[in-house]
């Protein structure tokens, strides 16, 4: 019977989409409205483990070496390879850590995820039955196709399964700089669903397949719904907060007065060859 109901639900959803361009029965979908914030205080990719090496990311030897070099640089005071330091967005899958509040908008054709952190991200998880397109512009957020599932056969969708491809980079898993592969051939699978006992608790099981990893890496992220009915959505403009500046291949610190400063001992200043010598 569960299977029959599930099939019927798919038929109804499809009929609604095809039969009427606008009819949308949102009671068929879980209530994901409101503002969601990360449940775990630590913003590591796997919230169940300590940050940095403690994440025990299944990195290949090559990418473990990149990560270790990054950690050594961090310990020496150099900004990490986290792209956000220079106002590049975290992209997928790091954006689902929800460094800032998250909003989920469920519409028949797609589920949209808005997170205002560095990039004003608006993931589109297309749920209109499309296949992978031939023409895609790669991006930090990738291209997501999803499918709603009625897992318990109660006639209502409860799980959104999503797969995301077509990325650009550089991207890292979290602020410690655990790298994703520079070939950007990442594939990410997610299962997003409300907690069965607490409807103000949301889970996202994320499995990342990437050439920087020796095997798929699965973590479970959770989010808490803000109690306020009309929460404030903060504006996050990276350029106003950044304490670093990238010039050429070097990253410099910017102090409170706005002066450029070396980010590591012995760092050379920016090349001023285009300025007349007398003016330096």
């Amino acid at each position, binding site marked *: 019977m569960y299977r*029959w*109901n599930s*099939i*019927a*639900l798919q*038929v*109804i959803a499809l009929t609604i989409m095809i039969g*009427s361009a*606008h*009819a*949308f*029965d*949102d*009671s*068929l979908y879980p*209530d994901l409205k409101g503002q969601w914030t990360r449940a775990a205080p630590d913003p590591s990719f796997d919230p169940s483990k300590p940050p940095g090496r403690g994440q025990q990311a299944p990195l290949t030897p090559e990418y473990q070496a990149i990560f270790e070099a990054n950690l050594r640089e961090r310990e020496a005071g150099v900004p990490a390879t986290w792209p956000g330091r220079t*106002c590049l*967005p975290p992209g997928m899958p790091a954006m689902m850590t929800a460094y800032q509040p998250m909003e989920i*908008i469920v519409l028949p*054709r797609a589920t*949209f995820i*808005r997170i205002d952190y560095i*990039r*004003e991200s*608006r993931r589109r998880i297309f749920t209109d039955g499309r296949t992978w397109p031939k023409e*895609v*512009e790669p*991006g*930090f957020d990738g291209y997501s196709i999803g499918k709603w599932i009625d897992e318990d056969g109660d*006639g209502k969708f409860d799980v959104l399964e999503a797969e995301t491809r077509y990325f*650009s980079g550089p991207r890292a898993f979290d602020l410690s700089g655990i790298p994703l592969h520079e070939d950007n051939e990442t594939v990410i699978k997610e299962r997003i669903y409300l907690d069965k006992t607490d409807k103000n608790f949301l889970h996202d099981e994320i499995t990342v397949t990437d050439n920087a990893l020796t095997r798929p890496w699965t973590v479970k992220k959770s989010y808490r719904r803000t109690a306020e009915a*009309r929460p*404030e*959505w*903060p*504006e996050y*403009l*990276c*350029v*106003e907060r950044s304490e670093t*500046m990238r*010039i*050429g*291949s070097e990253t410099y610190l*910017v102090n409170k*007065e*706005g*002066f*450029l*400063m*070396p980010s590591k001992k012995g*760092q050379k*200043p*920016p*090349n*001023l*060859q*285009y*300025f007349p010598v007398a003016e*330096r």
Partner: protein
Amino acid sequence: MTHRALMATAALAAALTLPLAAAQAFDESKYPDWSGAWRRIAVPGVTGQPGYDQTKRLGRGQQAPLTAEATAIMEASIADQAKGGQGNYPTYTCLSPGMPRIMTPYGMMEMLITPDTTHVLLEHVHDSRRIYTDGRDWPTNVMPTLQGYSIGKWLDTDGDGRYDTLEVETRNMRGPRAFDASGMPLHSDNKTIVKERIHLDPANPNVMLNEITTIDSSLTRPWTVTKRYGRDPKEEPVWTEENCAEGNGHVEIRGQGYFLSAEGDLMPSRKGQESPDLRYFTDAAK
């Protein structure tokens, strides 16, 4: 499963879900179809960067009702830009243009209508909006933003039982903001009020009109322009992702704008511009 069994199951499932539907139902058919990707419609003969009034060239060509003080700021900005500077154009550092300029729009736009909120997703620097349509009043303790705080109301202007127009008012903005790339300023007191009427063109449902009236201390009177957006005919438009920091050829150091060369070296943005003060580097003078 046979066809008959499938239909019977579907009907049963529909019957089972009907009571639930009443609790949460969102009747999309009451709202206009604003789905798809929208872009600014270029006006033939109007060249260069888009002006705020898209039917006229930017800057002086806009004939904006600026106060004398605001006119002086714009003229100084244009003069600085003529020398290679950025003038009164904060966006070049990846700061959002803010309201009302974001509604130009510079990139692709998508409208998501829900009963409580209409989301305006703008792929540009950092421009997306929320227009609240849940009947709320102005909040008393909200941080000002470049996009401001928008409250909207749906109207059925032709009485056909379906909403066709979204009336919006936006307040609570911060700065710096300019109307367009010429640096035509909005006032630094940030007391701007922006009113919009957004609706489809009755003659063409693939054209959207946004009548925007701006009330600002930099203006001698409210300034109304009508923006026109065209719907992408593709059923599955190719959404692009813009990341301002990626490949931005400008940096700002202590209030001075500089170019970055293709190799990533600092370059003056204007004739005679001094190099930045690198006092914290031991071999800066070499």
